[in-house]
């Protein structure tokens, strides 16, 4: 038998095998019920590589029940599959559809097989009948290089595609991390309220409370700000800065909102117990002493002491100088 005859016999055998395989896959047994047939084509979404017809899971049974109901209602196989795919996508089809992006999955094996056969046929034609290896048959370094490059490019391409396909999804939710590390610009007050309510006993929740309370305070919504400042001040785990901020805000809201000078002064004193040099506590205490007609002289002394502080910000210094001038002139607090 000649080499050419053997090659054609080989190709014919491969082609026959392919036809048999295609027929085996495409022709469905006539005795199979429609429900089982549809179920056998749909992958159980809670299993690994098992059809809903074969899986004992509750989800698979519920899906089979749905298919049974649709069949009884007169739906076609295509309509039932379409309904399920609309929710789950083609990911639940055991055999990917021969269309769109998955068409390549069907064509790739055939293409590779044809290409491989073509390479083998040409290779055999090029090989000397005698089988004697000569120098002529050895690949040149240039051809070795080309072959290596082809192999490398193929490998790199596949690795890149695999890395893209397998890359990690987004990480876990933010949780109750430090609010200063979060971008809260687009976060609503309702969301902050929910975060605080859901993490009421979390040790880091004071930062969130203060962030929300400051929003309410700046908007003049003392009623909404009050419980958050109070919770921080009474938490027992607040930092010195958090406690002072809460106490002076509570004090000022008591004075500004309800004209409760005594309560305000008590809260400012609590803040000064934590940090006797707190500029904001001293200034607000002096302001209430003056504006609340409590003790203008004491207020004057406090303002003077603050002006002696070299670390007083320029903006605050200007304000206090204006207040002190008004005090000295005997003008009313405005």
């Amino acid at each position, binding site marked *: 038998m000649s080499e050419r005859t053997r090659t054609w016999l080989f190709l014919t055998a491969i082609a026959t095998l392919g036809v048999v395989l295609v027929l085996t896959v495409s022709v469905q047994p006539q005795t199979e019920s429609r429900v089982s047939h549809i179920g056998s084509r749909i*992958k159980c*979404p*809670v299993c*690994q*590589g098992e059809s809903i017809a074969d899986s004992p*899971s*509750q*989800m698979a049974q*519920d*899906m089979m029940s*749905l298919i049974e109901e649709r069949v009884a209602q007169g739906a076609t196989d295509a309509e039932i599959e379409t309904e*399920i795919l*609309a*929710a*789950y*996508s083609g*990911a*639940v089809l055991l055999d990917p559809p021969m269309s769109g992006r998955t068409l390549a999955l069907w064509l790739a094996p055939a293409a*590779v097989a044809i*290409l*491989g056969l073509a*390479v083998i046929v*040409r*290779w055999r*034609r*090029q*090989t000397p009948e005698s089988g004697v290896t000569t120098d*002529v*048959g050895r*690949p*040149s370094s240039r*051809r070795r290089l080309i072959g*290596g490059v082809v*192999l490398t490019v*193929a*490998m790199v391409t*596949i*690795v890149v*595609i*695999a890395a893209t*396909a*397998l890359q990690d*999804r987004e*990480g*876990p*939710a*933010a*949780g109750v991390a430090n609010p200063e590390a*979060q971008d809260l610009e*687009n*976060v*609503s007050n*309702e*969301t902050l*309220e*929910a*975060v605080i*309510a*859901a*993490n009421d006993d979390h040790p880091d929740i004071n930062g969130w409370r203060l962030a929300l309370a400051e929003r309410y305070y700046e908007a003049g919504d003392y009623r909404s700000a009050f419980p958050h400042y109070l919770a921080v001040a009474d938490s027992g785990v607040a930092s010195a800065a958090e406690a002072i901020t809460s106490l002076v805000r509570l004090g000022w809201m008591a004075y500004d909102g309800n004209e409760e000078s005594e309560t305000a002064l008590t809260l400012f004193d609590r803040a000064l117990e934590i940090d006797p040099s707190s500029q904001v506590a001293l200034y607000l205490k002096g302001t209430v002493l003056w504006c609340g007609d409590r003790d203008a002289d004491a207020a004057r002394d406090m303002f003077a002491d603050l002006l002696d502080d070299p670390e007083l910000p320029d903006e605050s210094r200007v304000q206090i100088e204006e207040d002190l001038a008004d005090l000295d002139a005997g003008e009313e607090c405005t």
Partner: protein
Amino acid sequence: MRGQALKWTAWGLVGATVALAVVLASRFGGDPGLVDSPLLGKPAPEFEMEYLDGGGTLALGDLEGEIVILNFFASWCPECRKEHDDFVATADAFAAEGVTVVQATYQEDPEASSRYLDQEGRSDAIHYVHDAGSRTAIAYGVFGIPETFFIDESGTVVGKIIGESDALTLGAAIDAIRRGESPGQEVTGNTQQAPD
């Protein structure tokens, strides 16, 4: 010489095929539930589910014009227990803002779900319903729980969270919808299947 070049090309093809097989094989171990939901950007599937404690049924059509958060949960799901307080807090915080939270039981006897809610606490702002026969879960393409879907005022599915949610994640998604944006799909962790 030409034959040897073909030989090298053939080896290249063999190597590429083996590598491709390895990649495809590695995908079999992945979580099948991580595919992007085809419902995103589409009208939300209609549903009608019975309230857990009786009192009739709830249909999606009853919530027309509202932002709807549809969460699937069960007492046997550890992540669902972790996110319970966050759903209560979110529902309460947004109750007056046109946001409705619906929590549907997933593959669990409704009495067991009710007992669980009795232990963990409920929110008056949440609709607790029973998904009989997993019909709503199937319609929404649920792979496991917890899974949460976001439906905007026009009835379009605009977001999905796979895994445990927290109040900040839920609130941020609602805030985005209120700004007219679509939060899209986010994977925050694993999902659970019903125990055998």
